[in-house]
């Protein structure tokens, strides 16, 4: 069974630029999550989708971050414009039941 796929794996941008991350969850997993993991900290949930509907986006900075999950499969997370404090690893996870399966993440560096 293929795991959660994410791209790109690494991204370096300057502040105020835009960036987008892509996630392809495990086939059949209805729930998809985006997490932000700052170095030395635990993952922090940004947004949770159930199929193509948003379950929770209470911690998503909506003035600069946006996410969508069209057709209830792939998802994209966008940051526009980026700030220095957005430097982190962005993890995508999916689940069918309780266990969450994480992708390898995208490491974002904002200069």
């Amino acid at each position, binding site marked *: 069974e293929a795991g959660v796929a994410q791209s790109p794996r690494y991204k370096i941008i300057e502040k105020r630029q835009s960036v987008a991350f892509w996630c392809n969850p495990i086939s059949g997993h209805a729930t998809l999550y985006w997490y932000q993991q700052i170095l*030395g900290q*635990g*993952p922090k*949930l940004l947004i*949770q989708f159930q199929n193509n509907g948003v*379950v929770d986006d209470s911690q998503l900075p909506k003035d600069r971050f946006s996410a969508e999950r069209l057709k209830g499969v792939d998802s994209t997370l966008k940051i526009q414009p980026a700030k220095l404090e957005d430097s982190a690893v962005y*993890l995508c996870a999916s*689940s069918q039941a*309780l*266990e969450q399966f994480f992708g390898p993440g995208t490491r974002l560096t904002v200069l």
Partner: protein
Amino acid sequence: QQPVQSPQAVILREGEDAVINCSSSKALYSVHWYRQKHGEAPVFLMILLKGGEQKGHEKISASFNEKKQQSSLYLTASQLSYSGTYFCGTEGGYNKLIFGAGTRLAVHP
């Protein structure tokens, strides 16, 4: 509210035991445990669903005291492969996890 993990870091020699604690100030439906190695994605270890229930995975087991809103992860006869950062994720509903800051575990020969 982020759960509190203790200790922050542990150094062991192969074969030694360790306990990692996770405490929440809110009522919990479940506690999830993950291990993350440097530069890799978190990997699921186990879920604790019921108060006082213990789950096991090889030489790693855990308990969940629902009334105290606490969980503990027990690593027995540690192996080099156990090295990494352990996170507990507490769930208050809808399978939404709030992760602790992590416990760094280093196992040396």
